[in-house]
């Protein structure tokens, strides 16, 4: 999983049927220092909003289990809103 920051949303009318009714959020991926290091578009499962720090699942098999489907072109899913990240000193 990865930690990300919700930067915005993606609106799509024409999409693969899997994404019908799903909310897509554009998330900056954060490195260990909290700096943006690339981005991903993820399906939101926790009602995250812009500015939220989130936990992003980026693995297809788990994502499909989460949606209860055997097939589906899904991989990146927001599965949590992060309250805090504590790093050990050193």
């Amino acid at each position, binding site marked *: 999983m990865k930690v990300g920051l919700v930067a915005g949303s993606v*609106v*799509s009318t024409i999409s*693969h049927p899997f*994404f019908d009714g799903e909310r897509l959020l554009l998330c*900056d991926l954060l490195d260990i220092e909290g700096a943006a290091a690339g981005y991903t*578009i993820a399906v939101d499962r926790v009602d995250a909003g812009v500015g939220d720090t989130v936990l992003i699942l980026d693995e297809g098999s788990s994502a499909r289990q989460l949606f209860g489907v055997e097939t589906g*072109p899904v991989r990146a899913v927001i599965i949590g809103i992060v309250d805090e990240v504590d790093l050990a000193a050193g």
Partner: protein
Amino acid sequence: MQLGRVTGTVVATIKAEGLEGVRFLIVQPLDKHQEPVGEPIVAADAVHMAGPGELVYVVASREAAEALEPRFVPVDHAIVGIVDEVHL
């Protein structure tokens, strides 16, 4: 998934089994501000409606194969949506 801009088409008559009827498009990956990043890729069109000039989002790796019917079509990138708007 990543944003991309469709910049062209690829026609291949001789293809591996499972690829019959699959359209291939050239896609330039974009950063979140829709600026080009990295080299263009060839992606299968899983929405069957994407065309040159369009802003799309693309899924990579095994999940790309899941976007197409039948299952396990041998592709590594697939266009799974046409983007109307990106709100940042």
